[in-house]
């Protein structure tokens, strides 16, 4: 089942297209990271997924075919927006009460236990909590709904390293316990390797890369070798990004799995998720999208 599907999705604000021609099929049971430069369209895509914005063209559906924003979609998706907005004058207990009233499913016992473990006082107003506590409160409210999909929009931007670690630990534990799928946008590439097993890279309003992290890392490698030969090999290999010094060149290459051997005099290195992401961000024209068969499956599923 695809937890998020988009076909030809586009969103326009006035005359500007924030997103254009986006096609995606994120499978359930994954932690999908949405990365990209500021203004690339990450928040727009998330808003479309959770139903806060409507598409200007194309379709987006969630949780196996439910239209984004529909009551069935809202029921199964929990969203924690940037800056974790909460009602500042309400207490945590009030927020629990409110979230319980506004949803079909709410695990009050889980929420109270969790807040107790985090030492977040129930009777203090949300405005008096620290940034990390507010983020954990918002996350607790979201997880207590036992959603099928948890969507996080740069939830850790305002948090210190310890708070960030605790936040992600909470999310990952929920994945382990509940099997919830996660879609999170983040700037912090270094931390993504630990948590993400699906990558979506958005750049200039288009999806540049989308796929399972394992597959992407297996399909890419860095070849280092003499700079003089690099031009010749660049024609035969699918080079994403090249760095050339006077004597040595490094080519980040996309390959077909299976047979690719290293030319004599060259070395092959494993590529990290961070390196891969940076390379694609530097080369807006390059793309690593699922092959025609995968796209066709996605299209078929959405009909």
């Amino acid at each position, binding site marked *: 089942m695809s937890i998020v599907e988009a076909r030809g999705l586009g969103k326009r604000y006035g005359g500007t297209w924030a997103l254009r021609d986006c096609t995606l099929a994120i499978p359930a049971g994954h932690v999908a990271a949405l990365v990209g430069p500021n203004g690339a369209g990450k928040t727009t895509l998330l808003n479309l997924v959770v139903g806060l914005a409507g598409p200007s063209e194309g379709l987006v559906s969630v949780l196996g075919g439910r239209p984004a924003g*529909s009551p069935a979609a809202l029921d199964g998706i929990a969203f924690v927006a940037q800056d974790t907005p909460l009602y500042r004058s309400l207490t945590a207990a009030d927020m629990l*009460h409110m979230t319980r009233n506004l949803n079909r499913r709410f695990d009050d016992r889980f929420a109270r236990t*969790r807040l107790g473990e985090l030492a977040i006082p129930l009777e203090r107003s949300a405005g008096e909590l620290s940034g990390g506590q507010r983020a954990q409160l918002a996350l607790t409210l979201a997880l207590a709904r036992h959603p099928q999909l948890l969507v996080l929009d740069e939830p850790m931007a305002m948090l210190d390293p310890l708070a960030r670690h605790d936040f992600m630990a909470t999310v990952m534990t929920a994945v382990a316990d509940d099997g919830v799928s996660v879609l999170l946008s983040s700037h912090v590439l270094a931390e993504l390797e630990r948590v993400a097993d699906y990558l979506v890279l958005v750049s200039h309003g288009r999806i540049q890369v989308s796929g399972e992290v394992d597959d992407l890392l297996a399909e890419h490698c860095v070849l280092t070798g003499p700079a003089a030969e690099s031009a010749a090999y660049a024609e035969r290999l699918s080079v994403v990004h090249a760095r050339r010094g006077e004597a040595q060149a490094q080519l980040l290459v996309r390959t077909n799995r299976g047979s690719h051997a290293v030319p004599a005099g060259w070395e092959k290195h494993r590529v990290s998720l961070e390196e891969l992401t940076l390379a694609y961000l530097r080369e807006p024209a390059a793309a690593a999208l699922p092959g025609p068969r995968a796209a066709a499956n996605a299209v078929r599923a959405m009909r």
Partner: protein
Amino acid sequence: MTALPMDSLPDPHLRPLPWRRMAWVTWRQHRLTLAGVAALFGAPALYLLVRGLQLHHAYAPITACQPAASNRCAAEAHQFSAAYAHGAIVTAGLLQVIPLLVGAFVGAPILAREFETGTFRYAWTQGFGRTRWTIAKLVPLALAVALTAAAFGALFSWYYQPIVDVGGDSDSSLLAATIFDVHPVAIAAWTLVAFAIGALAGVLIRRVIPALFATLAVWAALAFLTGAFLRPHYQAPVVTTAAATPRSALVINQWWTFDGKPASLDMLNRALRPVDVQALTLQDFQPGPATPPTVGDPVRYLIRHGYTQYTSYQPTSRFWTWQLIEGGWLLALSLAVIAITIRQVSRRAT
């Protein structure tokens, strides 16, 4: 954490969550606002209660005065009027602003605040759904402000009754703009429309302070235009040739004819010159109470000499009809504005 047994995927055709779930939410989020409404109406209400008891107490002997038509009783009535009417008119004038304040300060922040603080990103992604959430907030709060205003208006109506009963001039008339506005049906409707305009401004402008200013401006313009131009025409005015019109009537227009043809001020002045009467000034021809008989009545003189005075006016007997007319169209307008607001919520993207 004990994982809840995950049921099979919920039926995509879900029954909506019951409305009463939002009752606590609306109350908890807006209880301070509602307290403010209570205070804003409550403080003047206390004043009206106290003052109203005084008024009624002072008026009681006037009704008991016998014979009613004698000069003595008339003088007492005049004394009462002189003592209390002006204060009541000023009070009504000050109360004009309350419907606007209540409506605007309750209506505008409901949606504007959510946008301003970003909390709509929480509220509109919960299972309840944004459209029903909005309805569940707007309807109860609209009812609350309208009913409170109506009750306040009823209190004012009771307070003001002696002034009406003793009879007065057009300034204290029930049809006078500031007096009319504060009676029950009108004040409820004006409060409701302020609320509705506030809510719409909130969803369109998305910032509380600018939405408040926009609400103030729009409501003030609407109120002014209604009082000055629309209201006097709710019904076709009565046209009479009588020398004197009821003192409390709302005079629309007054004009003279001679021999069936319109008579100008010049003509009238020439007619009056031989008589020992001060030359009429334009003031005397303005819509207003007929000149009291103590100043050698130029009006009766002119009438005796073949001139005809026409007065078009609205009698105060039409007061309750007009309350209902005004209440009716304001209610329709409010409902339309609220409907547009709800539609904006369901369509508007971030």
